[in-house]
């Protein structure tokens, strides 16, 4: 009896210790995707049908900057010239033919199998608050994980709630359940690390659509480098500038 009580107390103490450190846990997890506040990330999206056959492929260049600012340049032939600017909770789209930046709503940002939010948002620490649910086994192969439940701290984020599992030892992201505004499960994410035994960076994120078509989307991070873009690039009207941003 005394032993059981002691175990329970220790478990609660462990959860309590993690709870105090949720921001630190999220910051540690973010480092695996955003090693700096200002980054340029080249991303490839591959969508697969439920039978595993390839469905479509897209390439993006993302300038992810501090203070929730991201500029996404579409690079695939079908979308070449399209740009999306995300400044906190505000979003703009530029279609190449029109040369006219268009204000869009958060719902319009949620386009396609990998939404712009999936591509452009690479940090949780600034956007979510959370609690530690406890320790669980997760991942393939299975490992000890910390399960966190995150709630959006601002309205512009793509997902209102995230159930996130981090590796217990190194706090790398392992998997996540992503919920939209209506609290429906939209996507399930798995994170692929460069070196599973000693992870340093996320090389890919696998998203399984749970809302509509059950397709799987692979978000591969092809190249990352630290890059701070000029202030003017983050002005919505600057989107119409050509030659293309380099």
């Amino acid at each position, binding site marked *: 009896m005394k032993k059981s009580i002691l175990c329970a107390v220790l478990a609660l103490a462990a959860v309590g210790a993690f709870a105090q450190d949720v921001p630190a846990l999220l910051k540690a997890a973010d480092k695996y995707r955003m090693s700096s506040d200002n980054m340029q990330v080249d991303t490839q999206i591959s969508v697969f049908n439920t039978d595993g056959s390839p469905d*479509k*492929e*897209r390439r993006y260049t993302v300038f992810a900057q501090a203070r929730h600012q991201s500029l996404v340049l579409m690079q*695939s*032939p*079908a979308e*070449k*010239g399209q740009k999306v600017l995300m*400044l906190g*909770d*505000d*979003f703009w789209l530029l*279609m*190449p*033919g*029109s*040369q*006219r930046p268009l*204000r*869009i*709503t*958060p*719902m*319009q940002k*949620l*386009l*396609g*199998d990998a939404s712009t939010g999936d591509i452009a948002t690479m940090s949780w620490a600034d956007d979510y608050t959370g609690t530690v649910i406890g320790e669980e086994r997760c991942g393939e192969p299975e490992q000890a994980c910390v399960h966190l439940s995150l709630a959006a701290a601002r*309205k512009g984020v793509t997902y209102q709630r995230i159930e996130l599992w981090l590796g217990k030892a190194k706090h790398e992201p392992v998997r996540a359940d992503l919920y*939209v*505004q*209506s609290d*429906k499960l939209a996507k399930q994410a798995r994170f692929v690390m460069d070196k599973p035994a000693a992870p340093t960076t996320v090389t890919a994120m696998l998203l399984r659509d749970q*809302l*509509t*078509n059950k397709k799987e989307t692979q978000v591969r991070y092809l190249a990352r480098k630290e890059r701070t873009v000029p*202030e*003017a690039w*983050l*002005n*919505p*009207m*600057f989107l*119409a*500038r*050509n*030659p*293309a941003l380099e």
Partner: protein
Amino acid sequence: MKIIALSLAVLAAAAQAAPEFSGQVRPQWLAQQANDAGPLARAVALQPGIATLPRSYGAVETELRLSGHGLSFVGTEQQQRIEGDRLRSHGWVNEWYGATDAAGWQLSAGKRIVAWDVGYGFRPNDVVEQETRRTLLSVTPEGRPLLMAEHFDASTAWSFVLVNPTKPRDETGANEPALAARVYQRDGSIDWHGFARYGAHTGASIGAAMAWVASDAVELHGSLRLLARADTLASDTTGAALLRSNPWQAARTGGTGQALVGGTWTNEAQLSLLAEAWWDGTALSDAQWDDWATRNRGLAALVGTPAPTGAVAGNLAWQASAFNASTSLRRANLFARLSWQHDKWQPALDVLFTPADRGRVVTGSLGWQGDRVRLDAGLRLYGGPADAVLSQVPTRRIGYLAATWSF
């Protein structure tokens, strides 16, 4: 061929900077059914061949885009075969300009698309490009020759444009030489725009526009422009008198205004509804359309009288000039568009309605987007009561089919 030569010249100039190169090839077929009502149809019925009715055509358009080293080029080459005609080729430059930075300002010179304003169906403050709205297919417009200076900081942008600087002062519409300016201010969830334009012969106009994201799902926008004058066409002939020349001649309106309000709603499933209402004071007035209809009836009544058939047909054909008086046919307009983005499919249905005469244009479309290929098909129908202006335009139905291959 001219376009390809220009592309190569720009490519050579930009070669040192590893230029970006992209483009698309679009075969398309557009089937048009001419209207059997309206002044043009009556004119052709009386005297076949007196005017050209809308005809179907097939075309292949190749668009090339090159940029780098401060230069930018977009050109289009088109091979088109109109029903009953031979294959014709022609090309045009959509954009060709150089840009540089100096003392915190972005300067550009050349032919360029400068698109302003916030609406979808109508853009009163698109005072530089004056882009055609509600086209069946998404097309790259042809830019305007201009000199432009822009300044950007984090949330404000200033633009000054001298457009058509070398064109004659009496050019009309988007070809008129003019000085235009825009200031943009971002204020949280609201974008504010202020506009001013001074045309060589239309004089001053000022405008303002806003776009507000009111919630996660709703965006609202509005635009207002006040003009000293605007180019139009007008006729001072109201009766059924047979004339020797087209009574519809270039004219200028007095001071007037244009206004638009609208909004979009989009849900999680990417179902989107756009609704807009606009007032275009540069369009012909209800009284002018009444006079137009009276003259049409009067001319039609001359059929079977001793009046020369050719003269009656010619006068009826000239009445179709009224359709080109302004970008809007009627002053008051309502527009709604329902669209859905579902995986690779994009179905859409839209309706333009003119309350003054209950005329309407209904367009249904379906798009499919692959990795490199996009397919588009659709149908546009013009209709309403027999006396509605939209029931009397030269085209009754347009169907289209297009495949776009991007590279």
